[in-house]
């Protein structure tokens, strides 16, 4: 990614062996401020080891890590870690601390003023849909898995570190909770300016969150690039095969209307042109109008059983799509209706934030197609399973034809 600023994280020739087994082999990368890098790969590919070398939970056998141009070895590990947010799959909340105390751990270590800590904790908990009045004094075992991970996020963000490391943060959650938390995570204002390194083995998650993806296998980088590069210009057979199962779903979510229609067609169809947001490679996600996330609003607008509610479930559960690539989008009615009814109800009963995650993108208002709208979203609108403009200038066959043509173009471009 072109960027004039110096890298905030620079890893050079990192390697690590456990016994005779080389876990990480000669890995180098730069990360710009504000960028989100996803470390992706099968189990045992070395992605977690790589992540832990960044905050010195694991010391590399060879190579260096520089943060803001300074070798991390020159700092005490504790000092280094207090400046880097860290979230793990099992959350690891201190069971004998309340939610508020857990969030306050790092600010306290840093000696922040108690009043400032309290204010920060309250703000973060509110933003993460854990109303402090109710949750601040609770203990971790009183929370659901999703709530615990929210506290884990709040804890990592509490001291406002410029870098956040996340190790499979959503891995232990059930698919619904995972999707909703992931969505909140994406939309969290706090995270937009931060440099994020996230480890996952979930392809959909990687595509949803990444600016760049580092695909690892056997401790080596297979490819480092934008999601689109990995999808359409795979560096080797491993990369191509890795995405094979979800290829169509990923393509639908990666290509935008701006990609598949020519400039003329766009003008003719009245699709609003939006400047491609440099660095935000999932425009449909990152360039969206920030959501209004407020529990009252949610309660007022959300009517269980309505069409809207069903759509929301669909929208926020990409994992379900994963199992039925393609077909799921074309025949959404049966499947999604069923899912909607089953899944929304518990959401209402259990957690308010669960519902929030299933909110329509803009409550009470239909979004307008732009050049950044993904084919996937447009498809959902045309098939009536997602809200969209009331009048659309193209039909489903036209959309699919343009999509097919675009895929062909990418294919030939790569072959050349």
């Amino acid at each position, binding site marked *: 990614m072109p960027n004039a600023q110096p890298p905030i994280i620079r890893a050079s020739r990192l390697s690590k062996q456990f016994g005779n087994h080389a876990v990480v082999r000669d890995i180098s990368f730069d990360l710009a401020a504000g960028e989100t890098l996803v470390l992706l790969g099968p189990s045992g590919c070395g992605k977690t080891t790589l992540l832990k070398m960044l905050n010195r939970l694991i010391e590399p056998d060879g190579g260096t890590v520089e943060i803001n141009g300074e070798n991390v070895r020159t700092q005490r590990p*504790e000092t280094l870690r*207090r400046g880097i947010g*860290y979230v*793990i799959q099992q959350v*690891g909340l*201190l*069971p004998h601390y309340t939610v508020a105390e857990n969030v306050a751990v790092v600010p306290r*270590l840093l000696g922040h003023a108690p009043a400032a800590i309290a204010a920060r904790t309250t703000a973060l908990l509110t933003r993460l849909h854990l109303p402090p009045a109710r949750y601040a004094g609770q203990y971790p075992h009183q929370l659901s898995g999703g709530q615990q991970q929210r506290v884990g996020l709040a804890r990592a963000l509490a001291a406002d570190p410029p870098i956040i*490391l996340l190790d499979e943060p959503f891995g232990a959650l059930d698919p619904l909770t995972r999707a909703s938390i992931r969505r909140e995570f994406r939309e969290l204002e706090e995270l937009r300016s931060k440099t994020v390194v996230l480890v996952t083995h979930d392809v959909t998650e990687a595509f949803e969150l990444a600016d760049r993806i580092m695909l690892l296998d056997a401790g080596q980088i297979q490819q480092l690039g934008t999601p689109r590069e990995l999808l359409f210009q795979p560096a080797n057979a491993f990369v191509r095969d890795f995405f094979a199962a979800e290829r169509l779903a990923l393509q639908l979510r990666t290509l935008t209307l701006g990609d598949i229609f020519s400039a003329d067609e766009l003008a003719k169809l009245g699709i609003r042109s939006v400047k491609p947001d440099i660095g935000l490679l999932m425009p449909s996600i990152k360039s969206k109008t920030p959501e209004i996330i407020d529990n009252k609003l949610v309660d007022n607008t959300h009517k269980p059983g309505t069409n809207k509610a069903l759509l929301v479930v669909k929208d926020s559960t990409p994992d379900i799509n994963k199992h039925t690539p393609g077909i799921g989008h074309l025949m959404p009615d049966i499947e999604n209706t069923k899912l909607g009814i089953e899944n929304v109800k518990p959401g209402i009963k259990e957690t308010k934030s669960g519902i929030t995650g299933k909110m329509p993108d803009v409550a009470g208002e239909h979004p307008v197609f732009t050049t950044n709208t993904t084919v996937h979203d447009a498809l959902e609108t045309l098939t009536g399973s997602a809200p969209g403009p009331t009048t659309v200038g193209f039909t489903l066959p036209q959309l699919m034809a343009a999509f097919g043509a675009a895929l062909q173009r990418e294919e030939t471009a790569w072959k050349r």
Partner: protein
Amino acid sequence: METLTALFTFWHEQAGKLAEQTLQHIGLTAASLLLASLLGVPLGLFLSRRPRWAPAVLGLAGVLQTVPSIALLGFLIPLLGIGPKPAIFALFLYSLLPIIRNTLAGIQGVPPAVVEAARGLGLTDGQVLRRVELPLALPVLMAGIRTATVINVGVATLAAYVAAGGLGEFIFGGIALNNPAMILAGALPAAGLALAFDAALGGVQKLSTRRLAQVGTGLLVVLPLLGALYLLPRATGKLQAGFSPEFVGRADGLPSLTKVYGLTRLPSVVLAPALVYEAARHADVDVIDGYSTDGRIRAYGLRVLHDDRRVFPPYYAVPVVRPALLLDHPELAPVLAQLNGQISDSAMTNLNYRADYLHQDPKAIAEAFLRRRGLWRAPRPAVAGAPVVRLGSKIFAEQYILAELYAALIRGNTNLAVQTKTGLGGTTICFEALRDGAIDLYPEYTGTGLLVLLQPTPAVVDSLGGRPAAVLNYVRAEFRRRYNLEWLAPLGFNNTYALLMRQQQAQQLGIASVSELGQYLQQ
């Protein structure tokens, strides 16, 4: 019901002693727990950091745990003497294993994710230990302390054997005297203490982690205070006595001695019979009870205080047998009779000296003696299926030697097989074993038969007047009548109770008899 009445009477009479012993008991338990926690918790933490050491350390602590408590105290006496030191040290060793193991298990039970997250947030190793691992390990750690406490309350009763006091004094006195009320007088409060401590610590364990940390700190303050109970001033006098439990309780022991000689100003501790001589030798105590033929009198330079008012009844050694044995094997009577009147007081003291001080084998001592007297016959070859004569003995050297003497005679002069069941504990155990037919013969003392087993009215005892022949005749007749057991002829020596002092000190103070001891104490 009778026992219960006796129990309450006992408590009533001995209320002061009971309170003192209870406090001592708590003190012993608390002091040893404190030491064990101070060493065990850091050791457990160390092992959690260096798990490679865990099997070795836990194994060692486990071995210590398996050493029988009496044996452990025995090992510690030469190192630490008698009194509270070996008792507290032994209890400390017993508490180590549960405390180390539970500390380690507690730390290892902390979810790795929590520790990883804490480290990832930037807590130092010390902070992870203090703020995360220790608080989370506390419930398991406290369970270890709870286990150790309950073990210690139980084992602390044995402290009475090394003159460290505690509720064991009543228990062992009661066992030695076959006095159930006295046993219960110590055992019930001990059990009560164990239950109370267990319940209290069980309650503590249920507290939240945060409260638990406070309580844990509080415990570190309370334990030394409880331990200090032990140091409460005790009665002191010019001389300190150390008596075996049996002597303290039995009618012809300390009670009648105190009455006749007025030994009221003689503060005493109770300790194991095997230890009284050592205690006197090392000047831990000044006056002890003993047996007039004990070999250690000679070995340790002790003096027998002359029983000038004849408080101790005659204790002539006589083999007691089941009559069936002699009827079934008529050849046995003349063989057993070979020892009649053969062993004088000095001869017996000499034999005992060889055993107690020269550590010769009782069997070898017996053979040497028989050879000197011309009674030795080489054992006849064993006959398969030959009837077995079972010889019993109490748990001290003289009885071992007597048992070996009879065994050698029977083996050399008859075709019968011999089985020795030595070390049967106190009088009561031997006597019951003989009555039940578990043994056929054991050497008993006339005075013991009279006062411990028959327990006649004081009028009867007075009528016998301490005359050896009268006592033997009375005992023989009564045993025949009541138990159908036969007392044979005396072996010759009179192993009576005796008060002993160190030769040097007795000489210095000019004490040669018990009367003079009484006078000295009254001054």
